[in-house]
Structure formats: C-alpha cells, structure tokens
C-alpha cells in the first residue's frame, strides 16, 4: 500500500507505451527523489505540449501555431512534396539532410480490413495541394499547369510527389492508391517511391531474401 498520490502517478506512467508497472514505480520514485523544480518542469512540459502543439493546417505535421516550421520556411522547395504516414516519420527523413522539399502527413495508411479507407486519411488534402499549391503560400500557383512547371498565374506548383510510406503491405497499398489517383488527377506530376534495399553497413550474407529481392528489382546503373 502506498499513498494515493504515488499510486496515481504510477498508474499514469503505466499508461505510457512501453512502460510496465515496475518501470512506472521506478520513474515515480525517481520523480520523488528529484528537487521540486524538476517535477514542476516535467509537469509544465506535459501541459504545454498538449496545449501548444497541434496540426499544421497545410501539411498536418505537428506544429506550434497554424503552420509547422517546415511550411513556414521559405527555403523549402514548394515544388517537392514528401508523403509520410505519421508526424514521427518526418524526423528520420529530415535527419538524412537529403530532402529540402515540404511534407504531407497522411495520418496513417490504407488498411481496408481495419476499416481505414481513403476518406480516413488526408488524401483529398494531398490531391488538392498538388493541384492548387499550398494555401497562404506567397509563392502559390493557381489555375492549370503550363509547360514551364508553373501555373497559369505564374507561381510554382508541385512537380514531384515522393511517397515515403512504410515498406509494409499497408504502406504499399497506400502508395499504389496515391500513384493511381495522381496519375489521373495530375498527370504532369512525377510520383516516386522511396527505394527499398540493404541497410548501409550490413553484410549481404545476412540479408533477408525479401529485402534483397527488392534491392535487385530496384538496382540502378553506375
């Protein structure tokens, strides 16, 4: 038996993913052993993150305010869109420092058997962005695309959509769906898919045959 406030904190920690009762207990005792200001800082951070963080109204990434830092950044290439399943997927792509375009967060992947259909994801918003450009973007194009990659009003519009959904069955289904829709709605836009292959530093001898098979299928000329 422990005092009720301790029980409540243990129960709260236990609800976090990957935290079992023992870890929850350890975290609670750790909080108790730290100075008051540490506990206050933790509580404030928790409240702030819930109060201040929402969805970017353009790309649906996490944002403090109406637009996320990436959509606010004028140096990001507005003609390039990377489609990811969740906000957590934006970070690893950013860490590559290879991509300088913008994002579109779908909010999941298509899974008909789990009841997740196209209407449950931000797909219509994606097709609208590709067709019309980003709302409130000073460089936004509008009207039909003309030959030089701009719209009839002169602003840049999306020229390539990189589909970076997970290489799982649901991720592939989502990528196929996006590819088919964009071919129909915006045939001038290039739709690409992240390559699948061997992790850097891994031995070929230990590679699984599915990944290796895909690496072969996606091999490139050097």
């Amino acid at each position, binding site marked *: 038996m422990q005092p009720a406030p301790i029980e409540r904190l243990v129960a709260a920690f236990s609800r976090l993913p990957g935290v079992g009762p023992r870890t929850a207990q350890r975290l609670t005792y750790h909080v108790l052993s730290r100075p008051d200001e540490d506990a206050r800082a933790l509580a404030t951070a928790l409240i702030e993150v819930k109060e201040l963080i929402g969805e970017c109204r353009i790309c649906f990434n996490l944002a403090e305010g109406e637009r996320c830092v990436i959509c606010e950044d004028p140096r990001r290439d507005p003609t390039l869109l990377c489609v990811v399943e969740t906000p957590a997927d934006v970070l690893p792509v950013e860490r590559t420092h290879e991509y300088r375009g913008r994002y579109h967060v779908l909010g999941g992947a298509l899974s008909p058997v789990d009841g997740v259909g196209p209407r449950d994801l931000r797909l219509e918003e994606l097709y609208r962005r590709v067709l019309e450009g980003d709302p409130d973007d000073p460089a936004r194009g509008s009207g039909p695309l003309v030959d030089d990659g701009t719209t009839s009003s002169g602003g840049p519009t999306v020229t390539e959509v990189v589909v970076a959904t997970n290489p799982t069955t649901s991720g592939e289904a989502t990528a196929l769906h996006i590819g088919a829709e964009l071919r129909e709605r915006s045939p001038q836009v290039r739709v690409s898919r992240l390559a699948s292959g061997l992790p850097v530093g891994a031995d070929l001898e*230990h*590679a*699984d045959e599915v990944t290796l098979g895909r690496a072969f299928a996606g091999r490139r000329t050097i």
Partner: protein
Amino acid sequence: MLRSMRYGEADRIIHAISPEHGRVGGVARGARRPKSKLGGRLEPLAVVRLELIRGRSDLHTVVGADTVAVHHRILTSHAALTHAQRACHVVDRTAAPDEPAERVHGLLRTLLALLDARPDAAHEGLQLAFRLKLLYALGVPPALGACVRCGRTEHLVAFDAAAGGVVCASCQAGAPGVDADALRFMVQALGAPLSEAPSIDDRPARQVARAFEGVAAHHLGVDLRPRDD
C-alpha cells in the same frame, strides 16, 4: 502470413495460418528495425517457414523465418492487394488456433498464387468464390441443392444462414432473399476452380456476401460484416 501489427517500440505481432497448427500468433522482437532479418519476411501475403518458441499465452516468440514464396506482383495492383488482404483477414478471423487447417491453408495459397500470377484478374467474383470455398474448408459448407427445411428443389428464393443453406418460398419466413443470379453464382463458384471463378453483378454479390457473413456468424461465431454497415 495473415497479419502484422506494430507492437511496442520495434516489435511486431504476427498472425499466420499453418497447415499443421491452424492459426498461430507470435511476437517478432525487433522486427521493425531496419537491420532485422525477420522484418522483411513477416509481411502479410508471404509464405514462410516459421520457427517459434511456444509461449505461455496464445502468442509465441518468433525466432526465425525462411521465405518460401513472396507475392511481389500482388503489390503492383491496388485491386489485387485489397482482395488478398480481405482474404487473409477472413482466414485470420475464421480459422481456429491449434487445429490442423490444411485445406484452408491450401485454399489461401491458391488464391494468393492466382492473384500474383494475374493481378489484373482480381474481381469480386473471385473473392466471393474464395469465401464460399472457405466455408467448405472450415467444415460448414452452404447447402445449395435443395431447401434445407423441406427438401424442395424448386423455387429456392432465400438463404437461411442459421439453417445453413437455401430455402424455398414457403419456408422463407424472415430469411433474406437471394436472386437466381446469386444462387447460380454460388453453385458455379463452388463447382469450379478458383481460377475460373465466375464474375458477378453488384446486387447478387451483396446477397452472396450476406449469406457468407450469416453462415460465419451462426456457425463460426464470427462477425464479418463490413464496419461501415
């Protein structure tokens, strides 16, 4: 492999159907890490040889997997992929754990091989034919030749899922109706190989689907109605 779900930080929970052990579930530790040897092999639709350590619960621990067949071409067609996923879902829901399921396993492999060979051949008739054959494989075949209540072979107008087959007009009571097209489809689909599954229009397709869902609910205790119903 029937299903794969995220679990914990980098693990996966998998469901599979085995000819010897029926439906099996397992935890694949670290399967979502890029360097995991298991991750790529445990995707739905693949045929694999699994190595499991039996756990105390229904979930065993996956310690190894060898690929037997990968249905790469299914992934090139949205329709084929959706049909394959639906078939896996139905098997996942209806097959029993710890019971041999050789016929169910064989039927699903046939469908996946067919969709892989001809992804453009995916159609609703194939899905429904698979489901009807699945009822056979699970030991609850629908009776289609005569009224399951009075034995009449004419004027069969409805499908009584609780009784397990078609009924005539005088025995219909509250059983939902089936058109001649739906009845003809069911007979043809059960009598032909999957590769020759007949096509079907929307209305009879809904009736056949309802009949299948009714049998699954009454005789297997599984609710397979679409979620948006």
